[in-house]
């Protein structure tokens, strides 16, 4: 009976942590590279920016291309968009796919082994669920950089062109990362 109560409680805790806790992204499925792929790719991170020009609010999602003194450049589905830094309200960069669902799976598998513990289940099941959930949530935030940041210098390294927008680049011919 006690084991069932503990299992039930911790499953609820697990679900609530996962539903409310894990980081989300607007990047299309499969767009973000894994950490290993990111070592060898040369695209920018996925950026989601909310900006306010005084009269209206806009959200721009796309690839982080570059940042200059007063503007940042986002390659959306349609085109290369320049956004004045002083109009950026908030946003976030997702630099790679954390694959945190693997950790969630690990947590689940680990927890499912605990029924073989008998009375020990009362301890090991919650240990798995709670610790695994926290680990999963923590890991999901690892690739996230939020802004406004103290300095755009810290974030430029995640751009396609960390050196800044190249002089002479034909912006009309910019291509998105193939899906």
């Amino acid at each position, binding site marked *: 009976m006690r084991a069932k109560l503990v299992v039930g409680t911790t499953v609820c805790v697990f679900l609530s942590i996962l539903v409310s806790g894990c980081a989300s992204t607007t990047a299309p499925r499969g767009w973000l590279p894994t950490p290993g792929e990111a070592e060898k790719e040369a695209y920018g991170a996925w950026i989601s920016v909310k900006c306010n020009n005084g009269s209206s609010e806009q959200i721009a999602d796309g690839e982080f291309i570059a940042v200059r003194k007063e503007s940042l450049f986002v390659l959306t589905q349609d085109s290369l968009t320049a956004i004045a830094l002083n109009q950026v309200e908030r946003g976030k960069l997702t630099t790679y796919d*954390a694959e945190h669902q693997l950790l969630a799976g690990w947590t689940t598998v680990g927890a499912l082994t605990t029924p073989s513990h*008998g009375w020990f289940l009362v301890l090991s099941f919650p240990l798995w669920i709670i*610790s695994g959930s926290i680990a999963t949530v923590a890991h999901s935030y690892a690739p996230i950089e939020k802004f406004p940041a103290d300095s755009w210098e810290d974030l430029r390294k995640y751009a396609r062109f960390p050196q800044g927008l190249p002089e002479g680049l034909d912006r009309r011919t910019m291509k998105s990362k193939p899906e």
Partner: protein
Amino acid sequence: MAFWHSSGRRYLRTEIVCLLLVLFTCLMLLDGCNVATQKRNVVTPEDTRLLDRGSRFLKAHMLDGQVYILSEWNVDSNEKIVSGAGELLSANRDILAEGIFSFPLDSVAIFETNRVHTSGAVMAMAVITGASVALTMYCIANPKACFGSCPTFYVEDGEKPILQAEGFSSSVAPSLEASDIDALYRAKPKRKEFDVMMKNEALETHVVRYADLLAVRRLEGGRIFASPDGAFWQATQIIQPARCNGPEGDCQKELRAFDGLERISQTYSTFLGAKETIDLEFDTLPDGNLGLVVASRQSLLSTYLFYQTLAYMGSSVADWMAQLERDDDLMRKAINRFDELLGGIEILVQDKTGSWISATQVCENGPLATDVRVVPLPNLGSGFQKIRLHFTKGDWRLDWVAMAVLEREVAPLMLQPVRVRHNTDLDEIAQKSLLDTSQVLVTLPGDIYTLTYRLPDDFNKYELFLKSQGYYIEWIRDEWLAEEDPARAAMMFLNPEKALHVLAPEFKRIESVMEESFWRSRYAR
């Protein structure tokens, strides 16, 4: 989880568990929350001394938006040249060229490096998986003496259950999964239904793919022995050596019978890989195929070395194990090198010219259950009488050595469990897992499974063996984490010879008490 009261009594409180659950949840909600992660750095050409030289790839972003992605890269600040193998991509990341490149440092706008790490979350999960548990005073005093094993198998000897086998002792990771045949030499079935108790007595996760019973009908007065290559031999005459000499002198008393009286030696004080020999002489040997019967088990030396390696890895153990699982050549070579240095029990026979000829090695790993095996010997004609055993000093406990006349090779009956009980309850799911090799049975500390096999009607005429397959994962102990030392971990893999020298004094300090500590720290409910 157990908590020590200030009075020293250990007690368990679910109230404390609930409080921890609440605490964990609050922490999660209050703190917005830190597989693999990636760390990126960018460096200007003027600051190449800050480049992360450990990064596998270097991205050289050019002034015009193109980028070189190079492996095996080098940035020579003196010659002001960047070189490496890889690709040149356009501003739109189309591949413009592939191959080996070399270009001036001042053509680069900025360098980028990336490092992939096992995430802290994964390491935490690895530590959970290898959960840390407070142990008895014996383990605190001798952390590497904490009981560890693969699955242990107990069978009735006619009176009581005795430990007869330990399965797949070397399979300490999924990629090292292996099968193992163990003789149940002292098993004495009393009825057709024969029980084998499989226990998880250590702080480990055992993953068992199958545990089958092999039954071989034996001749009246004879025995069946398994050889290292997995063959089964019908043996009739079994002959004791007339003389047995080791470094300590006469060793016949210890080796003349399989009676639990073992011949043991201590390791060499400055090098754990030092060897010793035992010479055996037989007065008269019959013609025919002969095989040397050896009943042996390892000492705790290998266990100590394995645990010490894990301790040196410490919180990075997940990184190391992941490398092994990725089929890392360096890791596997290192593991093989340790095996070569310590080795098994080499069997040598003296031919008519007086030269020693190596027959084979007995390498049955595991410090718990004595295994009995026969080594078929080369046919050197009549007259040969001398056998030499050559092995690492202090690494082996020998119980019995004898010569057997091998009549013929025989094939065993393979029997799968007809019933499985988990503790006292019937467990059909566990049985199904053991019958289907695409599934596994996972056991945790304290688990006891009773596997029941149905023997032939004349069950007492059969020699029994256990064939098992699987792997197991050690749980990292708190006490081991205190010894984390990446340099020493690297030494274990890159220079195992040196490791056997360096660790010799440390092992000698605990060698004499390790056995007692080890057995006292078995996990039991």
